[in-house]
């Protein structure tokens, strides 16, 4: 696969390390009343979508950026690649 890095252009996916669903950026509030349940769901349950999947890749053999890649899990077509830091800043993140 090739990931079209927003800063670097197309790079072989083998330069990257995969983590999983981009929902892992939405770490729950540790002080919430149901924090235990929230953390369980956050860490262990997955939508595991067959289709457009937003997921985290780390450019370990590159600029060390974490990316949010939108990729179809049935065709592998990639339709969007963003710096995760931008996404985290824009969409809110852990507290």
């Amino acid at each position, binding site marked *: 696969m090739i990931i079209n890095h927003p800063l*670097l*252009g197309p*790079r*072989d996916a083998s330069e990257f390390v995969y983590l999983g669903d981009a929902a892992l950026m939405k770490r729950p509030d540790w002080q919430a009343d149901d924090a235990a349940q929230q953390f369980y769901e956050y860490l262990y349950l997955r939508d595991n979508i067959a289709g457009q999947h937003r997921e985290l890749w780390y450019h*370990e*053999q*590159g*600029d060390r*950026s974490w990316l949010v890649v939108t990729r179809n899990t049935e065709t592998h077509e990639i339709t969007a690649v963003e710096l995760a830091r931008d996404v985290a800043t824009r969409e809110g993140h852990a507290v």
Partner: protein
Amino acid sequence: MANYTLTASSPLAGLQQEYQGVTLAEVTNKALVSISVPLGGETALQTAVTATYGVTLPVTGKSSKTSVDNALFAGMSRDQCWLFFETDNIRPVNIITEKLGASGYYTDQSDSWVMLSLAGEKSRDVLERICPINLDPDVFLIGDVARTSMEHMGSIILRESEHNYLLCSARSSANSFVHAIELSIKNVI
């Protein structure tokens, strides 16, 4: 206190090899300091760099050259520039701090890397066997820089001129890195 002296040694003891159409040489006269941009401090750093070095900070994947200390700023990531420059000062960070003050976070990388110059008409043929980056001369332009992996080793490649490349890889695996390049040379030439 007894008088003990420490002597410096380079990872490849100044290796220099000539082959038909390509030369391979260790670069030992360059310091390397990473400059990280503090959150929200892009403008301040840019101002400081322009004032002292007379160049703008390059975007990721590009480099800017300046005559000051024969330095080259390489854009390594969105919040990091790496500065290659000539000095024999063992505290290169101090030089940067003097010039740029507290506008960035500086980390000495001079001893982290082995630096090699691969030069000559056959250099691209040699690199084709190990480097996944598209080195087409119309695509990877002079001054372009990329961080990638070659033969399972993290590496940096910088195109210095038409046929000349600066290659960096981890100091500890310098022997493996140079072996990979030499094997490419042997296989190609």
